[in-house]
């Protein structure tokens, strides 16, 4: 079971959209998962439980787990690359 932390500014709008795309992606790829959706300043509270972090904007902090920028789900730009990155980080 993989844990994905999905974070945006207020933890309400952008992360909600990203979560819906990520959930679909993981189902399509048969990756068992649970999502922790939160605001960017709550990330450090959850970081120990996560296998992957997906954010709406670039972070200043560096964490030990892989981080993917999820904004492409909103803009439609480079979505395939984002999806490939997510799947490959969780694949093993």
């Amino acid at each position: 079971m993989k844990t994905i932390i999905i974070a945006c500014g207020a933890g309400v709008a952008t992360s909600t959209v990203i979560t819906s795309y990520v959930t679909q992606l993981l189902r399509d790829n048969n990756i068992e998962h649970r999502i922790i959706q939160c605001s960017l300043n709550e990330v450090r509270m959850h970081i120990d439980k996560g296998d992957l972090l997906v954010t709406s904007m670039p972070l200043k902090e560096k964490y030990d787990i892989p981080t993917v920028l999820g904004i492409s789900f909103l803009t439609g730009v480079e979505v395939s690359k984002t999806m490939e990155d997510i799947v490959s980080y969780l694949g093993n």
Partner: protein
Amino acid sequence: MEELISLIESGKFVKGSFKDKEDFFKIVSDKLFREDYVSEKFLEKILDREIVYPTGLKINNIGISIPHCDSEYIYKNGILIAIFDNPIQFNRMDAPEELIDVNISFVLLIKDKETHLLALQQLIIFIQSQQFDNLIKAESQEDVLKLIRG
């Protein structure tokens, strides 16, 4: 697109010229406060949030923004759509040091996350669609809804 349509209908439509995003937020917050959509802290919170977590996005070469803040300051669910006669600068969500020219702003009034979940997904789909290019010509909420209904 039902949920999106419903939230737009529950919201407001604004078209006009604003000096800058602060001017836009001041005018819109006042309107929303007077109509009981938001609390008096809304202006402060939405300004603060935009500084720390900007909401500008470039989609299909159109600059948009999706300002919003915590549900704590929102009394009624809705989406206020603002079309700017002259572009206003916002910082980019995915590159906060960069400014982009924004023509359309969707002020998200999120009282309940669940109510907005499907609407937000639909909004993203609409923004990425071809109909979106015509949104900038909308003169009323009815024009917007016609475009979304397709």
